[in-house]
């Protein structure tokens, strides 16, 4: 399964949710934010190199708690990257590794559109604010246009009384409230994805997201 994690608004926690979800489903996580990557990187070829034709997709996969294809951070790399190659790159990762989670950037540019076009399904991440929700609705429209079914909405930093019913009505998909917690916030920087479990709030949310993804297999 190729799953695109999108949301329109920046800073709502797309990468954080994608990181734990990829860890829990044993998927390869692709950081597709070509201009402003934020998942950890390291030495070796990255997604910019893959999209510039300088490396094979499998070469750019880093092992670790979550298998990750990091994205380069240089402007020159972003300029050399040809976004039309992203479709083939994600496809070949799916052939080789099985499940792929693509962490999409904010906005509605082609680096969101191409993952949505190749994805089997998408997960929207939103925060419970009016502006974040309106961006999620626009992304939902784009996903619908590109035939990426919406498996669930992760309502991140949901607070005590999350407006799940209103979001469900607006976006027409199951809503998983993800509580604000230290465990999730530190997961990316410390390389410890949140495990699906019924014992913690974040673990519970990850378990619910995994379940939603499993339904589309």
């Amino acid at each position, binding site marked *: 399964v190729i799953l695109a994690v999108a949301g329109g608004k920046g800073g709502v926690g797309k990468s954080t949710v994608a990181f734990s979800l990829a860890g829990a489903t044993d998927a390869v996580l692709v950081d597709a934010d070509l201009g402003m990557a934020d998942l950890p990187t390291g030495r070796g070829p990255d997604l910019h190199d893959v999209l510039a034709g300088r490396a094979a997709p499998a070469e750019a996969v880093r092992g670790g708690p979550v298998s990750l294809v990091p994205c380069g951070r240089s402007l020159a790399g972003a300029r050399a990257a040809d976004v039309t190659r992203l479709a083939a790159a994600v496809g070949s990762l799916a052939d080789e590794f099985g499940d792929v989670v693509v962490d999409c950037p904010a906005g509605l540019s082609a680096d969101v559109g*191409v993952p949505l076009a190749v994805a089997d399904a998408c997960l929207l991440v939103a925060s419970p604010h009016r502006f974040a929700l309106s961006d999620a609705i626009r992304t939902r429209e784009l996903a619908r246009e590109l035939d990426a079914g919406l498996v669930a909405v992760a309502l991140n930093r949901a607070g005590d009384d999350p407006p799940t019913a209103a979001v469900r009505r607006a976006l027409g998909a199951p809503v998983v409230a993800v509580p604000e917690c230290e465990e999730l916030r530190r997961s990316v920087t410390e390389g410890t994805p949140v495990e699906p479990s019924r014992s913690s709030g974040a673990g519970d949310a990850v378990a619910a997201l995994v379940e939603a993804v499993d339904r589309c297999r």
Partner: protein
Amino acid sequence: LVVHTAVAPRGFIRETGTTDGMYCECAVTTTGGVALVEVRLRNPTPVARRVRVENRLAGPVLPPRTEGVPEAGWDRDGVSVVVRPHETRPLGYACPLDTETDSLSADPPATVVSDERAPDGSTSRTDDDHATSVHAVVRDLGRPAPPRDAVPPPDVDADTAHSNPDSPETDAGHPVPDSTDHDSDDTYPNDIADPPDDALPPAVQTWLAGVERRVEVAERLDADTSVSTATRAVADLDVRPAALPARLASDCRRLDALADRLDRLAARAESASVPSESLRRLP
């Protein structure tokens, strides 16, 4: 390519009615070795019709593009479009002229080769496989690449400075003259640059990187290069594509002059003997 909705009769005009009633009007102008073909389709029938127009000139069709991606329906030989009832549909493309005769090889330049009733609800998007939808996405949403001006020249950090200077003028036998008084650098710490011995000054590095980029692009372009490859190659340039040959020639002259000067300087630097002992005694 600008497509005029009302085709001004420049060059010659042909109007041919097909058996089914689709009217096709062509006009062609030639400029700079390229034929610009304007086609106007007129559907007089009350149903939507799917039409295939093919180029009859010798060269390939250079279709209109957005974000470097051809518009929907275009391919190397022509275009397939759906013309709505009573609609007049303008189309336009470019086609390189026959290089030997430099003249049009066919008249009219384009014709309707098939014309059939379009199934209900069909649009101009003919097929919808992965590649098509990815290209449509890029065309509609735009490439996320940062603008060329935002990309700093590849000279700033030390490790690129080390990996870059493989241009023959700088390290193949003509090392840049080194400071000869490394022994005394504790007295004038600011005189001696921190970067490693063979690092070039940033300005030189930038200039050489620019030359390298132009030479690389020139090497990538040849007669067989596809339009998309050439478009991407040329996009990395800091000069207009048309100005590239002249710029390369001037690069060549400058490099020659520089190589001469480097040779002479290197020889002088080697033969000059600095009285390092007496210099050390100076304050």
